[in-house]
């Protein structure tokens, strides 16, 4: 067994016990990435030198008895939207082809301070404005997309490159690649983790969080990225609990909401069935399933897109004026649409969102978490990324993927996506999301970890051969 194949928990325990050197693990990680990168293209930039320097430092620190905790010496992929000091940060866009930040984003600062080792910058859909990541391929079938926008992070975890990679989630961009690549991905409560130094797509919908191979490291990394920071105006001053004691607990009496609408509409049957099978597993372990109605479901797409287009338009306004030709046609078109959104449309969308949040709050009176498919279907074809619901009903993959994730962003509620099965034809991973109450990340992590222990769906690497 190569070190990269070790689970996070195994590797972390061996490092703590000085049975595995962070340098060995990092070298194995870099080697694995190198093997699969020609097929996967998960990275914009590899940072071998930095990684080995950090790994050697970690090795020394641990040898000297200064073990910092379970993240110490663990390789990390960083989405290219996150600023990294002295390292190219392109947001997978020609607009920032030469951008080298002079400081780390707060998330990277916190994680490297906890001893993590940055192996490279992962591909994103340009400026996170899309859900397919066209630069990158899905390790489960390289003719398909890895989802997006954190597609490189999903792809490198699924192919064994790292056990943790950072994502950001504005319309599902952590949960979509997690679902499509068969990894775990958590989006915290809005305001929980500061976004300082991360390129914005839509400030009122943006969340930062990790994609991971298993649930435990999701809890650890999410906590390490969290905490009040006044430089992020959305940041909430709330203590960050340790969620690891929740892991592997019980779901006895946990009320799990099963949607009667929205999440089962224009969703592939085996996607829905896999989620319901997961719900049944949890029910068998003592959870109570409660049918719920999703409020204002018909307003989700228009509300999310109005807000996103307008806020992205504001963020990129100067660049769109100065160098429109450097954006891809797809993103330039979206930004131009954003320029045309009226202030009145924008506030009407903000108001609809407030009503939606109120409706969800009422819905949670009867449940602790909601369980639903993460996305409407598995990885879409890279050549033709669409879902065909009927002969005359074809939906682009970006719209389809984010449609089912967007309520999590509009409500700001914590949500985790976990693998719950595979397509019968082709064996592509299928994900389900567990969405919790505000600042109750512990609930969604606990439910996911109970499911993880009860099944063998979580933590599986794509059966990808090394490139010849």
């Amino acid at each position, binding site marked *: 067994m190569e070190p990269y194949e070790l689970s996070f928990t195994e590797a972390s325990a061996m490092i703590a016990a000085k049975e595995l050197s962070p340098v060995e693990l990092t070298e194995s990680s870099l080697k694995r990435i190198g093997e699969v990168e020609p097929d996967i293209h998960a990275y914009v930039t590899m940072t071998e030198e930095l990684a080995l320097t950090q790994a050697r430092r970690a090795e020394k620190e641990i040898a000297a008895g200064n073990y910092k905790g379970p993240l110490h010496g663990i390789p990390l992929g960083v989405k290219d939207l996150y600023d990294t000091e002295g390292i190219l940060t392109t947001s997978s866009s020609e607009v920032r082809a030469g951008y080298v930040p002079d400081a780390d984003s707060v998330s990277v600062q916190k994680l490297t301070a906890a001893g993590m080792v940055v192996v490279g910058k992962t591909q994103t859909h340009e400026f996170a404005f899309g859900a397919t990541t066209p630069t990158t391929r899905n390790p489960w079938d390289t003719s398909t997309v890895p989802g997006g926008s954190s597609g490189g992070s999903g792809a490198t975890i699924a192919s064994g490159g790292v056990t943790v990679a950072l994502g950001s989630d504005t319309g599902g961009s952590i949960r979509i690649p997690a679902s499509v690549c068969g990894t775990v991905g958590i989006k915290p409560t809005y305001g929980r983790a500061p976004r300082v130094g991360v390129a914005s797509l839509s400030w009122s919908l943006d969340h930062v969080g990790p994609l991971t191979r298993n649930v435990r490291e999701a809890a650890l990394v999410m906590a390490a990225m969290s905490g009040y920071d006044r430089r992020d105006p959305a940041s909430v001053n709330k203590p960050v609990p340790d969620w690891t004691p929740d892991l592997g607990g019980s779901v006895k009496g946990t009320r799990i909401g099963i949607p009667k609408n929205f999440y089962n509409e224009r969703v592939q049957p085996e996607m829905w069935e896999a989620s319901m099978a997961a719900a049944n597993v949890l029910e068998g372990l003592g959870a109570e399933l409660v049918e719920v109605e999703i409020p204002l479901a018909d307003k989700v797409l228009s509300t999310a897109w109005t807000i996103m287009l307008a806020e992205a*338009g504001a963020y990129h306004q100067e660049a769109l004026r100065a160098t429109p030709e450097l954006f891809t046609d797809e993103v330039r078109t979206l930004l131009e649409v954003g320029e045309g959104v009226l*202030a009145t449309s924008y506030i009407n969308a903000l*108001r609809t969102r407030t009503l939606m949040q109120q409706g969800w709050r009422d819905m949670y009176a009867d449940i602790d978490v909601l369980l639903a498919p993460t996305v409407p279907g598995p990885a879409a074809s890279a050549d033709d990324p669409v879902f065909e619901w009927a002969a005359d009903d074809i939906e682009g993959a970006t719209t389809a993927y984010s449609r089912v994730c967007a309520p999590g962003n509009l409500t700001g509620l914590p949500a985790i996506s976990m693998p719950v099965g595979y397509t019968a034809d082709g064996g592509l991973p299928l994900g389900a999301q567990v969405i919790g109450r505000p600042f109750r990340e512990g609930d969604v992590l606990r439910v996911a970890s109970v499911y993880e222990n009860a099944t063998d769906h979580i933590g599986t690497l794509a059966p990808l051969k090394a490139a010849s």
Partner: protein
Amino acid sequence: MSAGGELAFLELTEVAELIRGRQVSSVEVTEGILQRIEDFDGRLQSYATVTGDSALEAARVADAEMAAGNYRGPLHGIPVAVKDLCFTMDAPTAAGGTIRSDFVPPFDATVVRRLKEAGAVITGKLRMTEGAYAEHHPALPTPLNPWGSDTWVGSSSSGSGVATAAGLCYASLGSDTGGSIRLPSAQNGVTGIKPTWGRVSRHGVFELAESLDHIGPMTRSARDAGVVLSAIAGEDVHDPTAVSVPVPNYAENLRLDRLPSVGIDWDLTATFDEPTRTMLTGVVRTLESLGWRVYSIELPDFENASADWEHMCAVETAAAHAGTYPSRASDYGPALAHLIDTGLGLSAIEYQALLSRRRAFTGRMKRIFQDIDLVLLPGAGLASPTTATMSSLGTSPELLAGLLVPTAPLDISGTPTISLPGGFTERGTPIGFQLCGGDFSEQLLVSAAHTFQSATDFHEKHPELERTTVAV
């Protein structure tokens, strides 16, 4: 005792004691107020609708309840009037316009319902500027300032200011989006509270700009304002933005736990006119004589926040009026039409730049109160301006921004504030000042203002009224 003379100018709390002690009945007090409205309001024009019959009926019910030993509290049997944007089932709610002149809402606004539940007698609906913006509708009467007809009456809760100052009710409700409780409070010499945003439900209150609108009391003393605020504040299932912070009885214990610290920004103060500065200096002297510590502080940029206010408001107003503007644009007056046109022309991107500055300003404002209990500001950017000066208010952004410097920024940040009289101009017209505090510090504001009013008599001065001229 008769409500015609001195009884009319008693504080709400004082007349409540007389009613509770059965020294005067609610019917007598209400009849007195209705008589005064007849005598004086033909000239002052503070009421859009007088609900005399239902008021007398409510007064009879109140008297019967009290006779049966069922006393509801200090509002029981007290004549109170509400701004004409509060929905009332028994009277039209026109919000200062002509389009809804026949609109009788199917339900009472939450604040009206709560006043009624507290036993208040609603005497009518008070005039206001069109849509609660800057100017009165050209086709409707403008209330007169009882201190002098050439003195600006204040906007937008003009009728609330006039009726309260002139003894045509014991308390009124106003609403404040850029200063609309505080400006008429200052101009008419009454006390008004603009509470924390979210403290009072807006359900059933006609909107000017949702995220800036605040409902609050206008009264003749801080204690009275506390009585009314206690009745109307609190969570409301019909308004998701009304927060569940518990509501104390703001008028019960007015003793300050400790001497509060007060901050004043002297650089900002230097930008106001001479009567305003003189008044503030006098207030500082009074506060220091009470033993309070007054500190020089630096406030965030109030002038730029005030300049941003019009656009912030405009976008929400345009959204609120989408059903009738531009389809019925000819029924709108120039000021409100100008505001809505401005809002319709703004892009979402421009609006976000405003929101971004709003967040920054609000964050800075909140931090001020980590170091200091209260901030002292004037009640308006101009000391008692004349009607002539204010004639172009609705269409002159500079005049508007200057007027709103001390008020609109507190709507932007949602900061609670109390406005009270603090002096007079050479013409003898009142000038007001504000004490503002951290979010949900209304108890401190009421107690502090009460302490000031216990040491001074500005709030006890009343205008001399001219009777309505009756043609013979």
